[in-house]
């Protein structure tokens, strides 16, 4: 009884909800990007690596700016961070695209190699950047980090608990939800979205309907990769406040891939799914059973994903299946 009281008072609190959202936003970026990618038939296993690259890219961009000027302005820092994030996650995804779309290499293999590369590059630059640029100490961008953490003025502190629950976050949080909503509208309400889904289901049929399969695959994967890169930037800038932790990002990239399954390839479901995953991700800290059992509770999001995966395959409903050509390269002559 005492145990349950402790658990529930912990879970039904403002801080629990807030940290669930904070954890969830990273996953939401990753999942929105990966859903867009997978809808084109590309299973991008490189997403974890791309998120590392986006994170370190944003940090490098802001760092170079803050080092270059005497009195850095936080918002210019934000712009530099976004630019750096976009550049690195674009380049990372481009490698994947060239390998899998143009060179028709195996997607799983290319993706896993990209993850090895991206995670390595992130940790390498995070650990060695200050040495390479000849400055001392840990690489941090305090001013830019604070700008990323700026909450919505007025709304966050004048609406009582409502404001604390919903307006207590930096702008990237709202951008994540906007992007997920926009991706949903794009995929299910526009002509291009329909074409993209057709490419993911049956590229040969799409090709016959004069849809440029290669172009759609490139666009969806590149834009998806850059959205996922924002997840890394969110983690580095808003969650860590503008610094790098070696391997601090952890397995969030794979969790984003899991969230794609949970959301059944629909970004709008990923919005609440990400908050749920965020809650599951931190649930362990609220379970008063000692440190060892807390480790067991950390598997909650993965278990839930397995259950969803099994349930969707058992039900075999048409609307809830993965894109039919997921994981396959398209070569015209193979039809």
């Amino acid at each position, binding site marked *: 009884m005492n145990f349950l009281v402790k658990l529930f008072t912990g879970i039904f609190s403002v801080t629990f909800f807030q940290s669930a959202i904070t954890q969830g936003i990273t996953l939401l970026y990753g999942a929105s990007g990966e859903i867009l990618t997978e809808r084109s038939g590309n299973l991008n*296993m490189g997403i974890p690596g791309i998120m590392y690259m986006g994170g370190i890219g944003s940090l490098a961009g802001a760092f170079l700016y803050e080092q270059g000027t005497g009195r850095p302005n936080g918002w210019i820092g934000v712009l530099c961070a976004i630019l750096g994030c976009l550049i690195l996650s674009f380049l990372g995804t481009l490698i994947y695209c060239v390998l899998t779309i143009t060179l028709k290499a*195996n997607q799983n293999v*290319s993706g896993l190699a990209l993850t090895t590369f991206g995670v390595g590059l992130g940790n390498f630059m995070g650990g060695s950047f200050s040495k390479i640029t000849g400055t001392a100490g840990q690489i941090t961008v305090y001013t830019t980090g604070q700008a990323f953490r700026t909450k919505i003025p007025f709304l966050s502190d004048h609406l009582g608990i409502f404001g604390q629950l919903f307006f207590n976050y930096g702008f990237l949080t709202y951008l994540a939800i906007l992007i997920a909503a926009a991706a949903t509208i794009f995929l299910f309400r526009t002509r291009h979205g329909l074409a993209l889904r057709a490419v993911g289901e049956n590229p040969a049929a799409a090709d016959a309907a004069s849809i440029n399969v290669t172009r759609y695959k490139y666009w969806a994967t590149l834009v998806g990769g850059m959205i996922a890169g924002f997840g890394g930037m969110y983690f580095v800038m808003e969650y860590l406040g503008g610094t790098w932790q070696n391997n601090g990002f952890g397995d969030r990239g794979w969790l984003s891939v899991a969230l794609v399954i949970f959301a059944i390839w629909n970004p709008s479901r990923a919005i609440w799914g990400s908050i749920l995953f965020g809650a599951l991700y931190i649930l362990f800290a609220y379970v008063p059973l000692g440190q060892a059992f807390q480790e067991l509770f950390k598997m909650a999001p993965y278990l839930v994903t397995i259950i969803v995966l099994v349930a969707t395959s058992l039900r075999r409903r048409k609307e809830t299946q993965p894109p039919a050509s997921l994981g396959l390269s398209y070569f015209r002559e193979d039809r």
Partner: protein
Amino acid sequence: MKEPWVRVVKRDEISLARKIWVRVAAILISLLVCAFFIYAVTRSDPADVYRSLVDGAVGSSRRSWSTIRDTMILLAVSLAVTPAFKMRFWNIGGEGQILAGGIITAAFMRYCGDSMPTPLLFLCMIVSSCLAGLIWAVIPGIFKAHWNTNETLFTLMMNYIAIQITAFFSIVWEAKKGSGTIGIINQKTKSGWISTSFLSGLFGKFNYSLNLIIVLALMIFMYIYLKYTKHGYEIAIVGESENTARYAGINVKKVILRTVALSGAICGFTGFLLVSGSSHTISTSTAGGRGFTAIIVSWLSKFNPFMMLLISFFLVFMGNGATQIASEFKLNESASEVIEGIILFFIIGSEFFVNYKLVFSHSNKKEEAA
């Protein structure tokens, strides 16, 4: 009519010479790019850096044996995922299956290390680690065989469940309270450790020759199993086309389950090799991403066990060498992953030039004219 300036055509026949020179060229170009990367971050002569890379990988007897040991582990995991892979079952859960085998091995070493006679202890460790890996792989296998549940994602999730179970035992068994690590198991008695002085007359006082012999035997077994047995033939057919297999009277579900079980069991066995034969402890990073790298190794070697040996050695050589560079130039040791990634990109990309050819439209016209 508008004609694209270049077309991609699949090659009908691929000569051995072409297979070799394309890949050698890819590796050479990747080494050049790596040299550029190393120069960009260290600003020292790449030739010097490559020299210290070689030194780091095979510079001393001890370093050479570590390189051999790591090569054998990577080779074992690659061999493990191969049969499933040839059947088009994407077992990317090697990581989890290794850990499952590793945990059980560590448990036997801890609890029975002093009480059991050595042969019995090893028998228990080997059998139970194989079983643990097997179970970890067969769970997704059952769902794949019966309901076509996506095995790539299922096995991936199983990794994290195994990682959390490992984290759980890391705390339950922790050496010092609050450290969260198990420490070296049986450091004094060395019971349950694979001997590192086997055939010391031949290989020197400190060696991993037992690991070497076991995994090379496994490699030959896998070569024969895939190429010359009925099981291997069935795997190839199911991988090519499930419908063909069904017409030929092959019980597809049975083949899937049997192959996945074998794959998982070998992964579990690798967990035993890692814990008993190399690290003598277990942590969440014991498998160290090898389950993923093995997929790449297996794919690049086109399921040929001997090629796997070559590629595993090359990757481990570069990785261990890069770790040395990183420590010499006080860089982060993730440099080795960056280098590994660059090399992999080039080898993966080079497959295109082995399998396809480019036909330019102007050369086409010449042909027509002639």
